[in-house]
């Protein structure tokens, strides 16, 4: 057995491009299960089922990157996207892997869900600004709105009125993620 020796930069990707996978399958692999290796770090199931494959024009002289448009039914962290998703711009990434038919059940039976997280709506002011606002308005504990980034796949939600958030937002340093780093400090 030959020894595989990698040279060059290291990469986080592991697998093949979609073109390599789909081109070798009967019927372009429609109905088969795909995974992105990058997303296998999550406990919740992340996989895609191929619905349609469309070959796009390609000129190797202009652009050596070979892309292919693959429409999939996408499950990401246990959430099935309501509409089919077309993978095109990321199809060249050598990070896809085909799931053998006998192993598909492993992904399909994984029923883990992301636990519901609730984000805080308000946050304290920084100390000096808080003092100014106290002097001006007389409110003893003024708070402002928190600016949370909007993303298309956010699995957390904002707290409703009177709800206790699971993720607190503080103006200070907050609770350490790994308290042992702070042991014997100060």
């Amino acid at each position, binding site marked *: 057995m030959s020894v595989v*020796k*990698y*040279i*060059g*930069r*290291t990469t986080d990707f592991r697998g093949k491009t979609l073109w390599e996978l789909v081109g070798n399958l009967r019927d372009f692999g429609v109905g088969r299960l795909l995974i992105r290796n990058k997303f296998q770090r999550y406990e919740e199931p992340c996989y895609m089922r191929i619905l349609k494959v469309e070959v796009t024009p390609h000129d190797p002289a202009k652009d050596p990157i070979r892309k292919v448009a693959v429409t999939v039914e996408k499950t990401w962290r246990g959430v099935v996207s309501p509409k089919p998703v077309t993978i095109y711009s990321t199809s060249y990434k050598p990070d896809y892997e085909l799931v053998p038919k006998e192993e598909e059940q492993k992904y399909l039976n994984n029923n883990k869900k992301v636990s519901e997280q609730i984000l805080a709506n308000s*946050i304290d*002011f*920084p100390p000096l*600004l808080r003092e100014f606002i106290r002097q001006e308005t007389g409110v003893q504990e003024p708070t*402002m*709105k*928190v*600016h*949370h*980034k909007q993303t298309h796949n956010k699995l957390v939600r904002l707290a409703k009125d009177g709800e206790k958030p699971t993720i607190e*937002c*503080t*103006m200070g*340093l*907050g609770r*350490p*993620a*790994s308290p*042992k*780093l702070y042991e014997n400090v100060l």
Partner: protein
Amino acid sequence: MLRTTTGVLSRLTINETKTTGSAFALEFVRWRRKPRWLPVAKSKLFRVPERKQQNADEKAELMRLHNNYKLQMRSLRQYLREEVLRLNVTTTADHIVLTPEQEEAEFQRCMQENEAWNQKIAVERNERLQRELEEKAVEIRQRLEAARIREEERLERADEVVRREIELSKSFITRDKLDTAIEQALANPVDYNFSLDLKGNIYRGRNTVPGGKGTPTLGGANEIEVQQTLKASN
């Protein structure tokens, strides 16, 4: 880093000079680094850079602190942005707030002031226009007068020319006067010839000599010459 590499590079250059053995093969090492456009060195071609393993606890804590800070700053910026907008809408600091009646009165006052200015400027403008009109009229009159004088002078000159021509026409040779004119011309031959001496004196006439008047010294020979030239020319 530079200090550590200088040793290696100086050794390299020395080796090179030794092997090539030519003074022209000197390489000046100014920047102690391979330029970006050179390919990977042969010795480094198959090197796989090591992935540094970060402590998972540290990584998580640093990530949390970073996110915390970013969230705080984003929230603060949002608050200040909204505060500025709110102040711009409600504040009266940079402009005076007026009731509609006051605004109307202010507008009327501005209009009256504007009217007054306009009238004042209109008076000045009319005066200036009047003055310019008069100046223009004077100038036109002067130019008309000058033109009239020029025309009169021109007519005068033309009259003069006509008079002179009429005067001259009395001596014109008409068909009636032709015979008398010929006779007169034959009777009074005009000799336009003249000769010059070295002092520039002019002697009118073909046969005039410096000493006296009208003595033909070389008359015969001259006539023969003239006839010869006439023949030659014919």
